[in-house]
């Protein structure tokens, strides 16, 4: 296969997967966060959670600009995702070329872009995909800064990192790469004979630049809040959450931590992220992994080049952060590691396979199989996602039905489902409820209206120790695919008996 054919095949593949994702978008928001983003397009207002704090300003800005041409706000956000993800071809190519040939780099790009789980995320109005694409730019910018000593190249990662922070603040752990860069730059400066003072000022200059770049989006947020004091008040109010509404404590033992780690790596990263819960995909990955282990000699830390080490360190830093500080129920939080793993896996699989011909054919065969399987699974899943009615929407329909059937207006108590109801502007009354005593009080005030409550809210009460024997009656259970919404894929609806 010569270069032109490779390029054409690659281009055709990319065009196909992006057009497919453009057509099969899941543009109707089905979760709290998605509603926040979609509503923010028409009105950016942090106070009413459009979107929630810290605001994801660059993402919403991108969506607003896309909205000029695309009528539906959800689709506008998704299209922005796709455009930014498309651009990530450049940095992935450049990074791959550091380690392998042109043709194999194209395969690596295809490998990364075909990842089924990333298809799911990119077709949702969520900030993940744009942030992931920018991470690719960021990693490449770090490698350029490492290779060069010119001032401009050192600023590049600082700028890209500020873009990432303006899209998804929880990727802060990747800022560790900049710290590594600064330490490295200092050390190479010393080796080159520069004085401590000169290097210190150079470093301080970069810190200033980094802060300057970050301040751009912060200023955007402040402007949208009206003035600085208003913004600070709001920020303090939002970050002062913690355990107030729950009246409980967050105690964690070592066992809980280990359980979290297991869930994170085995369930979120491996089973959901890499294999989208498909056994055939898992089998394929295991075969590929076995092949890699077979053909590789012992891999030592010192064999990895400097950028590869930084890459691993950043990955571990983010893993630790996700392990300790993020909601373990949502696999999308581990998306950067999914991306990194697929990228590295693809690279190791096809790199340096020039020795024996059977190994070469097997490795190329495996990667093509991987790409095709991920892409076809991705295509099917994304189509399913765009056509399937989320459990929350099914719930809304049923409740509308119950509302029309009842003489008095009904009242529905939920957790996060209420946000989607707000978006749908449903006719029935609904609200979020956490604390059981407050709920009881309201039911007394509301009687004889019919009261409904969702499973999540009810479970919350039980966790608080409420006694609910004979107080509830199951009305219906609604299902949708857990890969699209892990927490609310199953919704139980109960009626509260007075």
């Amino acid at each position, binding site marked *: 296969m010569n270069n032109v054919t490779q390029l054409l095949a690659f281009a055709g593949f990319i065009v196909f997967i992006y057009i497919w994702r453009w057509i099969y978008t899941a543009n109707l928001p089905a979760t709290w966060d998605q509603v926040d983003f979609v509503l923010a*397009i028409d009105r*950016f207002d942090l106070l009413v959670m459009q979107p929630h704090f810290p605001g994801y300003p660059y993402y919403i800005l991108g969506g607003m600009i896309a909205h000029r041409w695309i009528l539906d706000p959800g689709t506008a956000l998704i299209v922005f995702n796709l455009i930014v993800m498309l651009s990530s071809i450049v940095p992935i190519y450049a990074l791959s070329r550091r380690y392998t040939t042109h043709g194999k780099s194209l395969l690596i790009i295809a490998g990364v872009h075909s990842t089924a789980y990333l298809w799911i995320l990119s077709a949702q109005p969520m900030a993940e995909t744009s942030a992931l694409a920018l991470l690719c730019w960021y990693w490449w910018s770090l490698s350029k800064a490492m290779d060069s000593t010119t001032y401009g190249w050192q600023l590049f990662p600082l700028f890209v990192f500020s873009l990432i922070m303006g899209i998804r603040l929880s990727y802060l752990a990747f800022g560790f790469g900049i710290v590594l860069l600064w330490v490295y730059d200092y050390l190479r400066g010393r080796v080159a004979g520069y004085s401590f003072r000169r290097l210190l000022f150079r470093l301080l200059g970069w810190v200033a630049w980094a802060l300057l770049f970050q301040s751009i989006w912060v200023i955007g947020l402040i*402007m949208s809040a*009206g003035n600085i004091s*208003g913004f600070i008040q709001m920020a303090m*109010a939002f970050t002062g959450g913690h355990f107030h*509404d729950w009246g409980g404590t967050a105690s964690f033992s070592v066992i809980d931590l280990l359980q979290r780690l297991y869930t994170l790596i085995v369930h979120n990263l491996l089973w959901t992220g890499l294999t989208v819960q498909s056994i055939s995909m898992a089998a394929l990955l295991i075969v590929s992994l076995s092949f890699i282990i077979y053909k590789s000699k012992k891999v030592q830390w010192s064999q990895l080049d400097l950028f590869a080490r930084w890459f691993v*360190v950043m990955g571990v830093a983010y893993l630790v952060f996700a392990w300790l*500080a993020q909601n373990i129920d949502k696999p999308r939080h581990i998306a950067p590691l999914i991306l990194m793993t697929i990228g590295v896996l693809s690279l190791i699989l096809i790199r340096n396979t020039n020795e024996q011909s059977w190994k070469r054919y097997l490795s190329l065969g495996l990667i093509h199989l991987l790409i095709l399987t991920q892409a076809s699974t991705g295509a099917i899943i994304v189509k399913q996602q765009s056509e399937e009615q989320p459990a929350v929407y099914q719930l809304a329909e049923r409740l509308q039905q119950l509302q029309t059937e009842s003489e008095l207006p009904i009242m529905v108590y939920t957790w996060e489902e209420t946000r989607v109801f707000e978006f749908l502007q449903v006719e029935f009354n609904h609200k979020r409820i956490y604390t059981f005593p407050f709920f009881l009080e309201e039911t007394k005030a509301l009687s004889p209206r019919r009261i409904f409550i969702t499973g999540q809210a009810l479970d919350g009460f039980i966790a608080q120790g409420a006694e609910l024997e004979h107080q509830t009656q199951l009305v219906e259970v609604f299902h949708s695919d857990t890969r699209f919404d892990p927490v609310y894929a199953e919704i139980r609806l109960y009626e509260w008996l007075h």
Partner: protein
Amino acid sequence: MRQNKLRITIIMLFVLCLLLPGGALAYSYGDPNKEDVAESFKEIVVELNLSPIDWSKAEAIYKARRAEISSHFGEDVAVTLDVNLSDEDKEAFIANYKAVLGMNLKRRFDYSLKAFDDYAATKLLVAKAKGTYDVIKPYLPSDKTDELDKAFNVAYDALGNPGLFGVGEKPSDEAVFKEQSAYILNTVLPFLPFEDQIEGDSKPKQQPDEVEHAPMERTKKTNTAISTFIILLVIAIIGIGIWIFRKKKLL
């Protein structure tokens, strides 16, 4: 040698990063839309509907709000509530506290009209008004609450929006805001009458005309004196650091 230094620095910074997220485990966002005096009402009602009633608990919750109630709505109001409590008159206390929430609603709207040009301040005031209303809502008839919900939305929209980097900017409309806030108050307040307990005093409760404090009660989280001290301390530390480096001929 250089490898080791790099490794050590990395490990140290790494450990620092591990310490950072430690406390964030069960994180849930706070809510600037919650009004403290209204939230306390919810807690008190829960206490008063238990049997037997633990009046001291209810009193403790109320005491936390008493200073606020007294300064915003007048000492008479607070005294009336005190009397209701000491008489252990559950109905009267709850009814009067609801009335206080109504007064709070009026207070928030009055101040937001006064400060209408200050977008950030008005937004927060209306959010607090909404937070108060949400607590009263279950006690109002449902046909009224649908209309009131709409009125709140229209009022909030009438505040305008500076947009994101200027994109999506919307102008404010004071006339509409006045209209909606008047509608809300006129609809809600009649449901929340205040029963005076002070003898011979039958004039309606009015807001104190001269207000000494700012429209938004800001719980001062930072003390100016302490902030200044810390800033001076940091400058001193940096200064000492530079002096030490100078001495060691590094700079």
